[in-house]
């Protein structure tokens, strides 16, 4: 079970959270300007990354706030937790590729 550090509440068990999938997928500003294929890409297509991955979580059974998590999908190591709207921490995401 993951131990996730909510930016507002601190470290809590995974069971208090829900995962919202891949982060940084913005809703298109004008959906009608998109082709069916582009819309389908926004709607259905998600990366299935092996390694460092940026995803959204929400502290469902806590403060109910959404935030971003950088997690290595192989080791499950969480290298960064950052608030909604913040830029992904590139350097830290890369660091997780290092062998511990």
């Amino acid at each position, binding site marked *: 079970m993951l*131990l996730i550090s909510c930016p507002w509440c601190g470290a809590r068990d995974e069971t208090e959270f829900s995962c919202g999938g891949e982060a940084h997928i913005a809703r298109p500003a004008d959906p*009608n300007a998109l082709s*069916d294929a582009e*819309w*389908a890409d926004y709607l259905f297509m998600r990366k299935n990354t092996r390694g460092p991955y940026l995803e959204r979580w929400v502290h469902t059974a806590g403060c*109910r706030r*959404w935030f971003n998590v950088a997690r290595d999908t192989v080791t*499950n190591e969480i290298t960064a937790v950052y608030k*909604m709207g913040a830029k992904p921490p590139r350097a830290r995401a890369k660091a997780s590729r290092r062998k511990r």
Partner: protein
Amino acid sequence: MAQSHRLSDGGRIDREQPLGFTFNGKSYQGYAGDTLASALLANGVMLVGRSFKYHRPRGILSAGVEETNAPVQLETGPRTEPNLPATEIELYDGLSAASVNCWPSVEIDAMEVNDLLSRLMPAAFYYKTFMWPARFWMSYEKAIRQAAGLGTTPVHRDPDRYDKMHLHCDVLVAGGGPAGLAAALAAGRTGARVVIAEQQAEFGGALLGERDEIDGAPAIEWVAAALAELAAMPEVRLLPRTTVFGYYDHNFVALLEHRGDTVGTRKRLWKVRVKQTVLATGAIERPLVFADNDRPGIMLAGAARTYANRFAVTPGRRAVIFTNNDDAYRTALDLKAAGVEVACVVDLRGDPDGDLPDRADAQGIEVLGGWAVTAVHGRKRVNAVEVMALDASGEAVDGEPRRIDCDLVCVSGGWNPTLHLFSQSGGRARFDAARSLFVPGDSMQAECSVGAANGTFGLASCLTEGHEAGAAAAAGAGRRRSQKRISVPRVAETVEGAWRNLWVVPGKHPVGRRAKHFVDLHNDVTAADIQLSAREGYESVEHTKRYTTLGMGPDQGKTSNIAGLAILARERGADIPDVGTTTFRPPYTPVTFGALAGRDIGPLADPVRRTPMHHWHERAGAVFEDVGQWKRPRYYHRPSETMGDAVDRECLAARNSVAILDASTLGKIDIQGPDAAELLNRVYTNAWDALAVDRCRYGLMLGEDGMVMDDGVTARLGENRYLMTTTTGNAARVMGWLEEWLQTEWPELKVHLTSVTEQWATVTLSGPHARRLLGAFTTDIDLDAKAFPFMSLRQGTVAGIPARVFRISFTGESSFEINVPAGYGLALWTALMGAGEKYGITPYGTEAMHVLRAEKGFIIVGQETDGTVTPVDLGMDWVLSKKKDFIGKRSLDRADCQRLDRKQLVGLLTEDPNSVLPEGAQIVSELRDKPPMPMIGHVTSSYFSANLGRSIALALVKDGRARQGQTVHVPLDDRTPRAVIADPAFYDPEGDRLHG
């Protein structure tokens, strides 16, 4: 009764505490400190079970969790537990156990015929034979399960209590042997919060069964001193009878503690978040694979001396030791010291020359170096073995066999580090080619393996390694090193020679002929089976496992793993690590469902939500249904009524007099802020800018895929304030949905959301007398239809209670939905019931509500919709704004949503007005003699409508609106009713009544 094989002194049993027990119906006696296995051996009982597939007689193999041969059914009735290894059951007075997997008895087993037929039952026999025709599989499976069953599960409710414990610690030590105790001491001395778990009742691990010395005294004295020191440390928790069974992400570790019957709870499940884990899980001895190596009386060498030293039991009278290593010589020496006659040591190695063989030689024990056991005599108990000399290559035997009488064969093929927890933590085992064993590779989590679990077998090295790891773990968890300089205990190290790994011991006949060479005793998998699977093309061990069932039994291959890999590798001409290493998954040993469930059973399995009027409903005879976690009255039962009668009565009252519904469970979200209307615009399909204060509007919510997700009425309470209602079951989901969009996509919107579902009680009055009844309770709300029109709200008082009254209707009748603070709900309800008596006021439940709304053709999300239905499919284009964007809008333009043959909502009227279609029934337009027939849709809702005097149904039918008036067929098991496609609004389609 005399214990024929019990020594008169020694051992860690208490002869002052005799315990009576029964096994297979016979009474025996053992002592406190015994396991069921040691007590049986003390009574000369070796034959304890029958094997899984061939039903061969089997005896006790081991003294630990790796036991493959002695799964027993412990106790009977509600406390019964199947497949417990007799080696792991602590003896208690009155214990009752029986062999599993034999019928009619362990002595005479009817299925033993399988052994004689075994030439006809090769690996994967069941797969090959019972493959086709598939429809027979059900009956095959039943017969196979009966023939190959492993114990029986309890059929009664479990009378015991189980608890779950949550804990954080600096250092968790898994295993209470010498390395684990040394680690716990070193960590504990820093002041670290330490938990040490030992699966057995007593700490000490292997030391309990050995005659080692530490610091010049019996090792067990060091164990006692260590335990005393640990017990005195306030931050150290000792958990005996506790197995670390699961190692999960981020050092989350699960433990199962057996507490016995004397305390309040039988077992406790510990969930521990650990900073640093020390794995001191020991090692499991490897059997040797030789002809008929499964006969009762063949036992692991380490287990044999454990029985002698720890339990003061001699597992036989005359023993042969069969080994590839020095360690088994300890067994020869210890058995001899216990008075067992040691016939000889048969050593696969040509010239054994370590300290231990020298000691055996000095004791006058005959050693046959470079020999092998080639045959075993005796079916239910070994009575002799044949031994032969190996040729120079070790691939074959020569010369004349020599027969040695014996009733005990102690075998050792070396030891395998117990890597299960390491593997579960994400680590990959590394193959130590020099010793042919798997050891822990790189750590993937904050853990460290020590002692035998790390491939370190000498006692002195185990203590040193444990000590260093414990200190390092405490430091890793942020504890300062202890100031005191502590010396590691002194142990005389014994020099041991290398092992000789012959994965299949050669004999007189080729493998697979005239004898069985068992690799997995639990699942009856032989060397020949693995060779066959290799010949049939199964190259990976994962495939071989599934094909032959190697390592798939409750023991999970604890003794069979390495031999299976080695035999497969040899067949393929590959190295052992190239055929794969097995990944171990939790649990290490079986965990009962009771322990996993803990107290979360019965009424505590899931929270129950009740409305403020719940107890009134109960007294009125309500039959409840679960809607989400809510209990809602489904209908109110009266004596002599059927459910149908009750629903008819309630439905008629709603249309002819007045009916009352507890609607408190509807989700309610208070939405406030200057951008509240904009939020509604984005999440609902229709426009909200023009909604005036004190007006209500129906809203439909879609997923971004365009599919209907929820619906409900939202009212504007003030300039910047709205009250949204959701369906009962979706309230939490809709709240989460709105929060997600606000926080992730639209943080610029100034809106706050508050769930107020439980703050309000909601009472709905419906029917022609609703207005007159309510009028008697309010003076400050004008109920006149013109002053208070449909789809509006008023705030005032009802029965003296502050209230919000909404004119909305789900029944199609003139309705008033009265919301009062939850604490007043029951008072309002009883007041209305009392005054309504003269109108024949009738409480109605969800079933009548469903019928009434279906008469109107109103949908229920989740009944008419299933996540694949768009508003257009439902004929609700009127609710879709053309002018603005909303969630899901773009998806409605996708080609798939534009298809002409999509299923559309229609009404169905059966030709026979009394025939009520089952919900979910498939609809066909063209009836054929037999399936397949093209299905054009399905029934979503179906009821008998008392108001219409006939059956009605709603359905989703391909291109349904164009089929109005067509007759369709609904093929059922016993009949094929015909129905006409109609408009879904069956009752008052103009809506005159709800505006009235």
